[in-house]
């Protein structure tokens, strides 16, 4: 009954990275995402932009993974920006009040060049 639910592509920037997610971030897929994000922590990435444009489901496992990532990166002086969340992801962030915790951007381009 299972199908692949999430693809993760990471593009290096001069002082950061864009993490492009496509699909569903849930209890099944978030451990893999967590592993990829912790690599960015190890690399002391200054700015991580999470492109959520093509995320069709983000559950509490997914947002928990992002919270942990932001906390770890912040300890090293880095920042995490959530870009282009669709209505479904935005609703989850609002209900959990994490829209106040994360920096949000309407598009990746808006923050990738800074």
């Amino acid at each position: 009954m299972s199908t692949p639910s999430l693809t993760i592509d990471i593009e290096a920037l001069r002082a950061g990275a864009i993490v492009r997610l496509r699909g569903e971030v849930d209890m099944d897929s978030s451990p893999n995402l967590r592993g990829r994000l912790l690599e960015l922590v190890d690399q002391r990435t200054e700015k991580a932009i999470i492109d959520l444009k093509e995320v069709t489901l983000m559950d509490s496992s997914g947002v928990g993974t992002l919270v942990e990532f932001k906390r770890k990166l912040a300890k090293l002086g880095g920042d995490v920006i959530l870009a282009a969340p669709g209505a479904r992801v935005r609703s989850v962030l609002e209900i959990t009040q994490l829209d106040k915790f994360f920096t949000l951007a309407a598009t990746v381009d808006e923050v990738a060049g800074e």
Partner: protein
Amino acid sequence: MNAADVLQLEFASNPAELPGVRQCLRDWTEARGWEEAQISEIVLAVDEALTNVIRHGYEGRTDQPVRFSAEGIVDPREGDGVCIRIRDFGRQVALDQICGRDLDDVRPGGLGVHLIKAMTNKATYEHADGGGMLLTMIKFKTHTAKSSEDAGSP
């Protein structure tokens, strides 16, 4: 009740089952005229409930049974809706401990119950006969979770 008005699934407590269950539920609700936004809310509520079963009821064990049903219902005031039941046979959690974390205490975890409540009209946990938990969730087509007021901008 028409048999087609009930979706019944039984599967293992494995996170790898979640995408398939979500797709079955999505297909079933689509066929019954639910709108896309509400389908996403139903699917997310079920996803969160199953995640809690795996994480808390079965403490991460991936080979335990989970029973799921979704049934079309009609209320005189609210109209059409769905009643979803999720039954596990794991640890019985004290009912007064089933609550999300304080949202001001930002940390991973503790958000599933908040999302379940937001996505449904009603969500009721009880200790099932013979062990385990039974979660009953009801959502009507008149119900919408907290909507994004500014969907076009951050």
